[in-house]
């Protein structure tokens, strides 16, 4: 997910209908420049080289998201009429993380089976949590108030950090009890991608669980 603003203008994006390195491309209606989705960058056209700021997002079941955000608005285009509901992401699907010059990809099925994957992307310590029953995905920075945290699954959607023993809600990224109660983890932007596409864009990426 990206912020559509670039140097004072707000861009409107369409679907370019092309693949670049086997991944989706967009065009912006103002200049017709062609953008690559996994990197959020214009490849050709007037805005060539421009990069959009990525915005953290979550993947949740509706039940889970609704419980946390009862005031949410729900996109309703296409909600009337028959719908084929896909309950799970696909095979070869990775949770892609790009921070600075470094990149890492965590295999979704692996993360779902493990519940928690801790890794370092460049110099940044990251935790990826996937709810094994719902497929909910979270990615957080494992650093709070200059303290590096090492988590372990504590059951029932909870994580425990080994440094202080505080108990955290994995879905909210909030410490619920213990010495760090009330502290929040910073979400890390991540991208859903097929593993081969991620490898094309980030040839130096590490792959976990692939």
């Amino acid at each position, binding site marked *: *997910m*990206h*912020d*559509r*603003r670039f140097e004072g203008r707000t*861009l*409107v*994006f*369409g*679907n*370019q*209908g*092309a*693949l*670049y*390195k*086997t*991944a*989706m*491309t*967009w*065009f912006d209606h103002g200049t017709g420049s*062609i953008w690559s*989705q996994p990197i959020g960058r214009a*490849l*050709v*056209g*007037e805005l*060539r080289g421009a990069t*959009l700021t990525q*915005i953290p*997002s*979550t*993947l*949740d*079941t*509706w*039940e889970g*998201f609704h419980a946390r*955000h*009862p*005031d*949410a*608005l*729900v*996109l*309703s*285009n*296409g*909600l009337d009429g028959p719908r*084929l*509901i*896909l*309950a799970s992401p*696909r095979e070869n699907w990775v949770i892609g993380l790009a921070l600075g010059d470094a990149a890492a990809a965590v295999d979704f099925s692996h993360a779902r089976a493990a519940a928690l994957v801790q890794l370092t992307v460049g110099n940044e310590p990251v935790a990826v949590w996937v709810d094994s029953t*719902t*497929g909910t995905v979270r990615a957080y920075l494992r650093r709070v108030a200059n303290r590096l945290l090492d988590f372990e699954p504590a059951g029932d959607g909870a994580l425990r950090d080994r440094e202080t023993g505080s108990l955290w809600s994995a879905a909210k990224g909030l410490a619920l009890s213990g010495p760090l109660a009330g502290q929040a983890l910073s979400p890390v932007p991540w991208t*859903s991608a*097929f593993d081969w*596409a991620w490898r094309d864009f980030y040839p130096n990426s590490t792959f976990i669980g692939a």
Partner: protein
Amino acid sequence: MALVVLGVLALGWAIRGSADAPQIARPPADLPDPHERMMFDSAYDQRLSRDAIPPIYQPHFVAAAVAPLQPDELVIGLVVDGEARAYPVTTLNRREMVNDVVGGTPVLVTW
């Protein structure tokens, strides 16, 4: 996700044959460096015309309390400046892109 939808649509067109093949826009030839142009061309694969998979330019919303979603269906969630949005993955599979404004920030949601 986008790749699969694109693939299915491209297959559909291929089966229909070339007689009514859509006019496909080529990218603007504005890479002055021949090597860069070659690198771009080798990685670029135009499958459909622009917006053949129609993005959502004018999103509509319903309140969470009355949204007709199944409890176990997946949504992409965004929270910007305290404003929360849910985008059903089922919709994103068909439309792939949403131009929206959340919490005063213009956002692009893609899948």
